[in-house]
């Protein structure tokens, strides 16, 4: 492995910015976040970035590394070509605050528009429920989401078409799927999915699934089944004929 490498980091704020080059020593086992931290501690004290767990568990350190949306703490330098400068940019789908930090607050606001969990009444007299492992596993997949918003970052509906006001994005589709398929949930979110959250905007490019660091099968397991629910409900010709909506 090389003993030092160049990192080309975007520095700037909402007004604009530019790439700046930093050369720093690298060692076996280092991840991108280590290198950026080293640069911050030694060369650029005011470099802005987010991190918490350094182990892929909190979803704070999202960035675009050589054009790929990734967690900085889970991207090993040994997997990158260090002969070339390593390019690190903030996520593109959200407004920049400073350097690698973006304003992701939209995700938190959009989440509020999804109807919350509403459980059926308890199964047992002591107020508890019974669920089989097989039934919870499907939803546990969605609940692995660490809210890194990398999927939101690559989704063209948000990234290129900027439909943040109309479309909730793959992360919140996963969130909705977790609620809809929760064995205890009794709420109905199908109409909202069609009218308010515009699930129809998604044309299953699978970009979101490909970047998910938790390997959640966003499209096949979450979005497509939700689309099917919408179709079953609203476009079933027989049901429409009989007027049972």
């Amino acid at each position, binding site marked *: 492995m090389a003993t030092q490498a160049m990192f080309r980091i975007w520095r700037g704020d909402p007004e604009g910015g530019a790439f700046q080059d930093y050369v720093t020593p690298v060692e076996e086992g*280092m991840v991108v976040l280590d290198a950026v931290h080293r640069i911050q501690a030694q060369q650029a004290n005011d470099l802005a970035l987010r991190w*918490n767990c*350094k182990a892929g568990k909190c979803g704070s350190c999202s960035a675009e590394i050589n054009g790929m949306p990734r967690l900085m703490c889970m991207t090993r330098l040994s997997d990158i070509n260090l002969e070339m400068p390593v390019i690190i940019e903030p996520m593109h789908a959200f407004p920049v605050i400073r350097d690698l*930090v973006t304003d992701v607050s939209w995700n938190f606001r959009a989440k509020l528009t999804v109807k919350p969990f509403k459980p059926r009444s308890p199964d047992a007299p002591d107020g508890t429920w*019974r669920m089989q492992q097989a039934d919870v596993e499907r*939803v546990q997949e969605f609940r692995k989401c660490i809210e890194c918003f990398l999927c939101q970052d690559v989704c063209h509906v948000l990234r290129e078409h900027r439909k943040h006001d109309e479309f909730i994005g793959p992360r919140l589709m996963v969130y909705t799927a977790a609620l809809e398929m929760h064995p205890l949930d009794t709420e109905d979110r199908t109409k909202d999915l069609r009218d308010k959250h515009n699930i129809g905007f998604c044309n299953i490019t699978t970009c979101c699934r490909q970047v998910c660091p938790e390997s959640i099968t966003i499209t096949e397991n979450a979005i497509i089944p939700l689309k099917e629910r919408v179709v079953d409900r609203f476009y079933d010709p027989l049901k429409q004929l009989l007027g049972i909506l």
Partner: protein
Amino acid sequence: MPEFQRFSYDVLVIGAGGAGLRAAIEAAATGLKVGVVCKSLLGKAHTVMAEGGIAASLGNVDDRDNWRVHFSDTMRGGQYINNWRMAELHAKEAPECVRQLEEWGALFDRTKDGRILQRNFGGHRYPRLAHVGDRTGLEMIRTLQDHGIHAGMEVHMECTVLRLLLDSGRIAGACGYDREKGRFYLWQAKAVVLATGGIGRAFKVTSNSWEYTGDGHALAYRAGAELRDMEFVQFHPTGMIWPISVRGILVTEGVRGEGGVLRNSEGRRFLFDDIPDLYKDQTADNEDEGWRYTQGDKTARRPPELLTRDHVARCINREVKAGRGSPHGGVFLDISWIKERMPKAEEHIKRKLPSMYHQFKQLADLDITKEPMEVGPTTHYVMGGINVDGDSQMATVPGLFAAGEVAAGLHGANRLGGNSLSDLLVFGRRAGRYAAEFAKANGATSIDEQQLQATATEALAPFERGASGENPYQIQYDLQEAMQELVGIVRTEDEMLQALETIAQFRQRTDRVGIVGNREYNNGWHTAVDVGNLMIVSEAVTRAALLRKESRGAQFREDFPNKDPEWGKYNIIIKRGPDGAMLVEKRAIPPIPDELKAVIEEMK
């Protein structure tokens, strides 16, 4: 003069981890106006990282379990200097709190008959930890977050509290800044709940994130509240040690709960060689019995790998010092060996410990289903914290409450795994409830504008010094080195006296810290602010550890290697003196009621 954005609440909660969110939900349910402030984004607090599970005596896996067993396990683990009232309430209320999470949407792993599954953990007599694979903390924080956002609380994300404000001795709110723009904020309140977590960043090798700079400890201390048990810092026995850059990252105790074993370089399960008397009767004396225990055999006793963390960490330390360590200075933790005992072991490991599998695969290029891991102790948790009333969680400053890792008492000298997540729920709920009561019973407060301005001026001072000042990252780094070296797992008087001197020097350097750039999302500035808090907690840990001339739980003194029954009667209390110097005192533990004593005796 810097401008302040002003907000007013009945109850202000500082911290949005498990404890803070639980407190805020409870307070908001009373219809009061509740504000929450946190340094990171919502859902990123430390709680998200918890892996193994939540301890609660649901008795779903072993119906011999009940609050009495959980209570006595917690007291035994804490070496009997716990706040016994908290240990009692915790054991009694944890099951209900876990069920409440399910009501709010949490999806725990299930037993065959469809109830919440529970797993073994160190120091717990029966399988007790409700869990979701090895990402229980994520499940917990997301459940509280998603429930909380509809519960009627206002959240100020990425804001750091700098000071608590007082009004004639009573709490009046807090002030701080937002990370985004560096604007100053005033959050006026009738009651404040501190739920800021721990202090792990005082040490070099730690499982803790940048947030864990002991802010809540320092805020309370500056406001005149008492701290207690600060000498007890938990070093988790199993952190990653290789590659260097991941050193300290946690390897959950769940690995051992699922049958993982610790070996030295000679292949020996060295924990069998040293089983403390307090646990002799409960510990397996052969490998087969230990394995049967992890697989649910109720007649078997637990393997020594599941002894308490303080003990396991010290044994690892000893093996390494004796030259029987692994290549990078730890020991071997092996889960792959279970393939000798069960079919389809690989799938089993991946299903039970998915994030450990992932973590080692991605960060260390190691497949834990095939090879042993290298592990060593890492700074993990602080048992010490704000001294609170066991029932209400109120600190010694009226209107100030504390819950979660920042509060002290429940865990005594050593925390059992899983007892933190349950702590957050039980005492987060209590703190929220009693803070709301306090806010209802007491009128509005007024703000000391002078204190407000002084806080802002002090916070901005590093900008004046600019690049010619001290580098805040370097001070933090040097402090971490010193604490690790001088006040770590093995302590002596000489080294700790040296630590006090060093801290005093670092404090002077902190006064000279300089910042480049402007106030907008300036991590250098944030570090400069946090490092002052680290100085306070480091001094508190060192002074308390010096005074306690014995070894107990997490504190190991090489110069006083034995437990002293006399010291078992005291807690150490820390407080700021009128002249600003740190006061340290021994305080007798109130006598434990006969009913609780009887429970402990019965479970011995």
